[in-house]
């Protein structure tokens, strides 16, 4: 078996050095979004022309969508979500935040004043005791 030869391009290194993490992340997200939509089309059992017809678009527009370079509007993403039955835009932010706050309040209420105070003051000696106290109060 022939050993694989690898190559490190110096010119490519220069180009890569000029790419900021933010720029790469932006490209990654666009590509991942396109891949997500392409996969959903496949799962739905559609080809590009059929999906284009579903969306009321020309197939060339779909090619742009799937290229990984397209800047989608929110309206278009919502149309795609509805057509493919997938979630692209997360809209449960407030629900998650409310649940998190609710749990935090329950923990605070379950603690004795002294332990609550020690946690607020970030006294690590009482961290384990605080946890034990909380568990005791929840289970009785």
């Amino acid at each position, binding site marked *: *078996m*022939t050993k694989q030869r690898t190559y*490190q391009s110096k010119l490519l290194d220069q180009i890569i050095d000029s790419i900021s993490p933010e*720029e790469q992340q932006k490209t990654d997200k666009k590509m991942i979004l*396109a891949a997500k939509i392409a996969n959903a089309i496949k799962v739905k059992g559609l080809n590009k022309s059929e999906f284009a017809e579903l969306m009321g678009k020309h197939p060339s527009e779909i090619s742009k969508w799937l*290229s*990984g370079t397209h800047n989608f509007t929110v309206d278009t993403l919502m149309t795609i979500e509805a057509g493919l039955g997938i979630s692209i835009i997360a809209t449960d932010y407030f629900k998650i935040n409310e649940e998190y706050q609710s749990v935090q309040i329950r923990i605070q209420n379950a603690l004795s004043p002294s332990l609550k105070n020690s946690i607020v003051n970030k006294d690590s000696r009482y961290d384990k005791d605080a946890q034990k106290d909380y568990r005791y109060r929840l289970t009785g």
Partner: protein
Amino acid sequence: MKFSLIKIEQFSGERSTFYTIQLEDGVVLFDEFLEENSKIYEKELKNITQRIRSMANQTGAQEHFFRQKEGKPGDGVCALYDQPKSKLRLYCIRYGNAIVILGGGGRKTTRTLQEDPKLDKENKLMRELSQKITVRVKAGEIDFSVDELEFIGNLEFYD
């Protein structure tokens, strides 16, 4: 034509691996593409590099990221671009989502490929390479690794 397949270190990721071609005279096709276009198309090359890195590390080399039908049916020859409307083309041979061979390319200035001598030459080269690789794969001299991310076997085409 004598050549060898070499793996591009900077483009080897969890999702796909990118190779290029080194000719007998030492010329590396992808490097030649970068050198030819780095002054005029700096932004476009940067964009293409970002897209390849995304494919290597995040998404794999999915079919819809490439312009298809750039070669004969089934030979895998396609083209990479920075934007769909862009005239800059980088010819590739794609083997599923995991392996891509990057060749040369340039800016398409004519209506058809055949009218552009430079692009026509680059495109024909990739078609020829694809054919030679296919012969080796069919003969069992080249295979794919278990994770399908690499070629294994004889990657030197000097006979």
